[in-house]
């Protein structure tokens, strides 16, 4: 009989905690167009898979009237569950409980579930919706943030870490997402900044809205802090599910293989790329003809669109695609594009995902702003990431591969395992026009019709040097291939790279140009 009584008491106690900050606070949360923390978890995880821990954790603050305050779960829900069968650790800050503010116990619940994820080797997903540090706890809150950042760093490259920004995430709080692998944002709901509009206006007199300062679109397009951008919370949760299905649980595993499907798009691959090297096309159309089922999950679609990165499958296995995008800025490399691709390559390498590079790029972006923004050290990240990576690395040169960009885009010289080039590829130290102007300056200057001579010399240069055969004659290109053979050859290259065994000299860690 007592047990029954105890069970009833437990149910009541749980129901109390599950109500978070109470009905009124929930109403307010919903009125802001937001789901509750619990609903977010339940909608993200497989039905009936969520199990919560540390429901009855209480804060220990005694100052500023906090001794009389009871905070359900101390403002954060933590637990484990599955997404399409894949095990995950998850936490969600509950804005209805004292604004989701982070105190020491709140942080310790988070670090506990992170430790669990690291030990059990599964992805950790954090849903952020918090007003920031719990001021009443002072240094306790700062300690809590620090302990989270430390674990983010320890877990980096061991388990995938995902941050979902579904509300405010300001001040020190932003650094946990920044340290994780993928950040998801939602229009009108996500707000991320170090100092908010109030401080900026007080100190500088600059007036700006939260949305314009650190809204979803800003981080998806301008700063590059966000990797996935959605219009609604539900769309965001679907993106997370898709991502989880494409990446491994930890660095000791490979992503789950699924039954391969042929590309849906059967468009003639030869017709996608215009013959004139000055004309653009959408490189994603090439990816769709190569990936299984023509599926491609693009990462950081809006930021630095001059390079395309993302995941697809080939023969049922996850592949990381890196492709220059002639549709934007002619597909040049610049600071942002280098940062974007470099980090993606390091993720793929850390998590055993082979990398397929599709190259069509005219070089680095010229300009004072780029030079002064440090395109040298940013560009170097890309060289570093490709050189360092030991997963299978395959490159297909579609059209242009000039100068430093040719070297940077996973060339043979940086350790590419397979180098393929289409017959129209122009592999050269620079574009034919520029090269002809320098090499044949004397002939052009002395000619009666300078323009005609320049044209002739440019043509001469293209025939002699701006083609794949010079590089192929030196073994830098393994095979010059017909476009329609590309998928079969890449599949074969992946097949024979399965047991790739590549080692790096012993080091504590490298010193990449961060």
């Amino acid at each position, binding site marked *: 009989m007592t047990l029954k009584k105890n069970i009833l008491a437990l149910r009541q106690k749980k129901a109390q905690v599950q109500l978070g900050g109470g009905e009124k606070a929930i109403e307010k949360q919903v009125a802001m167009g937001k789901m509750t923390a619990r609903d977010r978890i339940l909608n993200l995880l497989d039905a009936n898979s969520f199990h919560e821990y540390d429901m009855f954790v209480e804060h220990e603050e005694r100052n500023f009237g906090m001794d009389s305050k009871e905070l359900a779960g101390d403002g954060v829900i933590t637990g484990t569950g599955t997404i399409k069968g894949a095990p995950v650790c998850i936490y969600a800050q509950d804005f209805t409980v004292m604004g989701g503010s982070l105190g020491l116990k709140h942080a310790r619940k988070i670090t506990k579930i992170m430790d669990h994820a690291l030990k059990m080797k599964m992805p950790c997903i954090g849903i952020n919706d918090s007003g920031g540090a719990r001021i009443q706890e002072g240094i306790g809150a700062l300690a809590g943030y620090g302990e989270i950042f430390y674990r983010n760093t320890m877990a980096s490259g061991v388990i995938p870490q995902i941050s979902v920004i579904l509300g405010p995430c300001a001040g020190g709080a932003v650094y946990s997402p920044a340290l994780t692998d993928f950040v998801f944002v939602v229009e009108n709901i996500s707000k991320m900044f170090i100092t908010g509009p109030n401080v900026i206006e007080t100190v500088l007199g600059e007036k700006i809205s939260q949305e314009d300062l650190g809204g979803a679109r800003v981080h998806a397009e301008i700063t590059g802090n966000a990797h996935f951008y959605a219009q609604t919370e539900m769309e965001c949760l679907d993106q997370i599910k898709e991502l989880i299905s494409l990446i491994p649980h930890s660095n000791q595993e490979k992503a789950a293989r699924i039954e391969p499907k042929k590309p849906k798009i059967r468009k003639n691959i030869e017709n996608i790329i215009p013959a004139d090297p000055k004309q*653009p096309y959408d490189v994603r159309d090439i990816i769709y003809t190569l990936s299984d089922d023509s599926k491609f999950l693009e990462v950081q679609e809006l930021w630095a669109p001059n390079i395309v990165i993302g995941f697809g499958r080939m023969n049922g296995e996850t592949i990381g695609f890196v492709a220059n995008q002639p549709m934007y800025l002619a597909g040049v490399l610049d600071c942002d594009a280098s940062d974007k691709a470099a980090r993606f390559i390091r993720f793929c390498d850390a998590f055993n995902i082979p990398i397929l590079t599709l190259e069509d790029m005219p070089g680095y972006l010229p300009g004072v702003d780029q030079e002064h923004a440090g395109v040298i050290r940013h560009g170097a990240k890309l060289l570093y990431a490709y050189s360092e990576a030991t997963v299978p690395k395959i490159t297909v040169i579609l059209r242009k591969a000039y100068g430093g960009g040719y070297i940077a885009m996973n060339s043979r010289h940086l350790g590419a395992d397979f180098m393929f080039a289409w017959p129209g590829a122009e592999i050269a130290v620079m574009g*034919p026009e520029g090269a002809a102007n320098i090499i044949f300056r004397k002939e052009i200057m002395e000619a009666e019709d300078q323009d005609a001579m320049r044209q002739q010399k440019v043509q001469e240069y293209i025939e002699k040097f701006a083609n794949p055969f010079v590089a192929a004659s030196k073994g830098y290109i393994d095979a010059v291939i017909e476009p329609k053979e590309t998928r079969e050859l890449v599949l074969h290259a992946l097949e024979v790279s399965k047991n790739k065994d590549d080692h790096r000299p012993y080091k504590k860690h490298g010193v990449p140009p961060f």
Partner: protein
Amino acid sequence: MKKKEVIEMVDFAVTARKYKTQLTNKYKNRKVWVNPNPYEIQSSIPGTVISIAVNEGDLVKEGDHLLILEAMKMQNRIQMPFTARIKKINVSPGDKVPKDTLMIELEAEGEE
């Protein structure tokens, strides 16, 4: 065939060749480089002007104190970069100035 939206392509020069492509918003909004003018004293950090030690028309020696700009709780003394005359003062004590605000304009000492 999927209907494609009409996209505006521009000529974009990378070294000697011009490519047809689209520009990103970030590229369009980038800061265009202008040669710095030594006769313009600009704020190198956003902050608040606390006091101004010179008047328009003054001849000020190199290293002399011009104004105090408080930023990040520090009072920065802005000094004269070289001997010159104060042509125009565009700020007053209490003003909050963003970065790169033209605070004081100078002219060569002989000029009127």
